[in-house]
């Protein structure tokens, strides 16, 4: 079984600052995918970014990038030029290769607050 750990229950930064959310995971799988999901107060779950474990290059989506360290089983999310609309819960999630039926294993989330 996989476990995902997010050690920061809550973080608060000023608008326009850069913030990094940490995530570590434990698995015996060699091929898998990692995700960051955002859940704003509207409750909707929104995919922010995904990373394939077999790719060494870190994924980037506009202001969002990850630092994927496979050996360390670490998958942090960096948000650059943070905006008020980034305020949300952020969940790190794991899925094994071909694991459609097994679904996503989530961490407990980090509540990110962007201060004006």
């Amino acid at each position, binding site marked *: 079984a996989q476990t995902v750990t997010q050690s920061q229950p809550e973080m608060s930064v000023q608008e326009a600052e850069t913030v990094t959310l940490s995530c570590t995971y434990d698995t015996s799988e060699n091929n898998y995918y990692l995700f960051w999901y955002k859940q704003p107060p509207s409750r*909707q779950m929104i995919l922010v970014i995904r990373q*394939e474990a077999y790719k060494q290059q870190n994924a980037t989506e506009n202001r969002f990038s990850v630092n994927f360290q496979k050996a360390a089983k670490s998958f942090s999310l960096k948000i650059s030029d943070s905006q008020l609309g980034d305020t949300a819960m952020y969940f790190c999630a794991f899925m094994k290769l071909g*694991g*459609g*039926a097994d*679904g*996503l294993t*989530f961490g407990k989330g980090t509540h990110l607050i962007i201060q004006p």
Partner: protein
Amino acid sequence: DTAVSQTPKYLVTQMGNDKSIKCEQNLGHDTMYWYKQDSKKFLKIMFSYNNKELIINETVPNRFSPKSPDKAHLNLHINSLELGDSAVYFCASSRYRSAANYGYTFGSGTRLTVV
């Protein structure tokens, strides 16, 4: 044009009642899921279902049962509701073999409150 829609968005009911939450997706996905988000925001899979197999998380009480009339629908039935069932329930869908490539699409959740 919501891709994954759940109804109702809010449900308040008394202990012991039986209730259903409906989910429909118009994405042509072949796999659907139910997740439970507890009061501490922790998300955990309850069921995954495609037209070939139903996989049930072993921790889910048998009072919970998914019902799929067709590939586009996966409803959640809950019998004899208990206070501890209060949570937000999310429906999601994906392509079975490509869930990781394309990710999940989540519904907006149903907040169930048992009083």
